[in-house]
């Protein structure tokens, strides 16, 4: 006989409280703002989904969303292949391993705003090594005035900062491949590409998905570095969703639209995370069900 009672709820109660205080209640205050309007004096009026309609219809939001998506896509397209290539080129044994690992880990240890400051100074045409160097070579480079230059600067900065993460994840996957796989491949006469395609890639697939997920989330939520380097400019050309949101909420004090936008932003991230999660687990399930068949 199974004893049925509601004691289990007591067990989950502490967790529920913790989640409520840390996530649900703050989130609800945002939800609260997103459906009301205020004219000061702590007076609020119910406006329903008006802010959501406004945000979703606004060109400003669309543009920021497109910029953010493009930025993330470029980041993934550069950092993932580059990270794999560097991981493949890294030594597998000897003193050089520690050296490479430390070198790779260094950019990851630098705080975001410091990274931004470094590149902001580095790229300046008047005093920056990069900017001044390029200018003296006769190349017209100015990230404060030229949209293309601003994007290139932000992307190179992010690649410099975060490719290491992809490298380290892939490297950990690569070193876990037993030597005997490479020996068998040599005996089978496999080319370098075949070794990558049929041995290395399948073995790093899982960590690679984690790397893709982390880099997507991070780049999609990027705020500090563009804020420090370009401040969203020139014009609005590097105003990503996060920068736009802060301008709206803090700069213009449009609490209602800002709250609605945060919720939409949050839902987009949640949706895309869910997509990644589904892809990852379905890959796992494929493997598991194939294994379970015997």
């Amino acid at each position: 006989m199974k004893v049925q009672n509601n004691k289990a709820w007591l067990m989950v109660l502490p967790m529920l409280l913790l989640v409520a205080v840390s996530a649900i209640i703050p989130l609800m205050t945002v939800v609260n703002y997103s459906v009301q309007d205020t004219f000061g004096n702590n007076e609020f009026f119910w406006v329903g989904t008006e802010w959501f309609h406004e945000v979703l219809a606004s060109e400003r939001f669309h543009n920021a969303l497109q910029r953010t998506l493009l930025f993330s896509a470029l980041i993934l397209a550069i950092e993932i292949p580059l990270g794999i290539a560097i991981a493949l080129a890294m030594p597998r044994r000897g003193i050089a391993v520690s050296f490479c690992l430390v070198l790779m880990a260094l950019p990851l240890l630098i705080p975001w705003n410091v990274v931004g400051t470094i590149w902001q100074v580095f790229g300046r045409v008047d005093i920056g090594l990069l900017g001044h160097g390029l200018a003296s070579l006769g190349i017209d480079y100015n990230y404060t005035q030229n949209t293309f230059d601003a994007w290139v600067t932000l992307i190179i900065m992010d690649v410099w900062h975060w490719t290491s993460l992809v490298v380290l994840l892939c490297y950990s996957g690569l070193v876990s491949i037993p030597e005997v796989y490479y020996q068998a491949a040599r005996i089978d006469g496999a080319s370098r590409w075949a070794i990558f395609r049929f041995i290395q890639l399948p073995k790093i697939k899982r960590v690679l998905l984690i790397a893709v997920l982390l880099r997507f989330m991070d780049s999609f939520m990027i705020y500090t570095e563009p804020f420090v380097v370009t401040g969203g400019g020139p014009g609005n050309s590097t105003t990503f969703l996060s920068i736009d949101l802060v301008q709206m909420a803090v700069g213009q004090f449009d609490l209602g639209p800002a709250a609605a936008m945060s919720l939409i932003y949050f839902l987009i991230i949640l949706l895309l995370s869910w997509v990644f999660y589904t892809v990852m687990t379905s890959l796992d399930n494929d493997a598991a069900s194939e294994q379970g068949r015997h």
Partner: protein
Amino acid sequence: MASIHLKNLGHRYAAYDAGSDNPYALNPLDQVWEDGGAYALLGPSGCGKTTLLNIISGLLRPSEGRVLFDGEDVTDLSTERRNIAQVFQFPVVYDTLTVAENLAFPLRNRGMESTTIEARVAETLTMLGLEGRANERARSLNADDKQKISLGRGLVRTDVRAILFDEPLTVIDPHLKWQLRTELKKIHERFSHTMIYVTHDQTEALTFADKVVVMNAGSILQVGTPEQLFDRPRHTFVGTFIGSPGMNVLRCTFDGEAAVVDGVKLPLDEATIKAAHARGLATSGVSLEVGVRPESLLVVGAGVNTDDDPHYVRVDVLGVEDLGRHSLVRLRLGNQLLCALHPEGAAIPEAAALRFDPARTLLYANSLLVEANG
């Protein structure tokens, strides 16, 4: 198919401890593996057998000596150009490929035509008994089927000069080991590939191979048929390593006509006595041992008959262990311990004597068998 000649071959690993008394992982040796032979390379872990195998396959370049295939020097050829197949301890399959694609992989890499590939793959699938599973993902197979695929990637190739096995049954379930070994043997009989099979399991070695190569501490000690290794081990290590329990090895001296173990004379056959005289072993002072298999010793009750016969020697019975069909009798002769096999059920006499057969009592000088041509 090819014969393999290892000419004055030796290997030391670069990182080997310089302070060690023997820098060689593989002591210099000269060894011919005949075309179409099924060889087992038997020895304890760390004796250098995998090193030797990797040198033959070209995964490792020997620090000295040459490797010849059918007289052709292949020492500097890469693994893929030597046309060797190798099956490793842990099954290696390409997870994302199907069974058939796995088998086709080495052929595709060599740029063969797809119709030829298909035919070869189909043939190999039949050979391995995997016809029905050609389109399954390789990673879904169990360990022994994966190991079959590893083997199949060698068999599928027409140009294979030898198939090397590096303890291929380690991860296979015990009840499947027998089956897989039998299939290997069948494949060898049908296609007579030159096969070299590394193992530390004597049962595996003795059942698989026509000839067994016994190694220890980086040296080949003996090459022979299972019978030769059992009846006339040329090194005391071979005697103790092969057989269960292994050969009894007792320290002794040679008095000109018999081996003397702690004052007790053990008769030797004429050929051995002659050889011992020829080498002057009675006076030379080299370390001598006498080796005798537990199977060739007979435990009887001590009595008048046995006291007069020089083949019988009085021993103390220390204990008896039941091994199923036999009992293992632990004995003491002089100050040294030995054991004998005794038919199960037969009573063990309290005052025991041991019958030594001179033809099966072997004399070893510095651990090497003393024999007429030696």
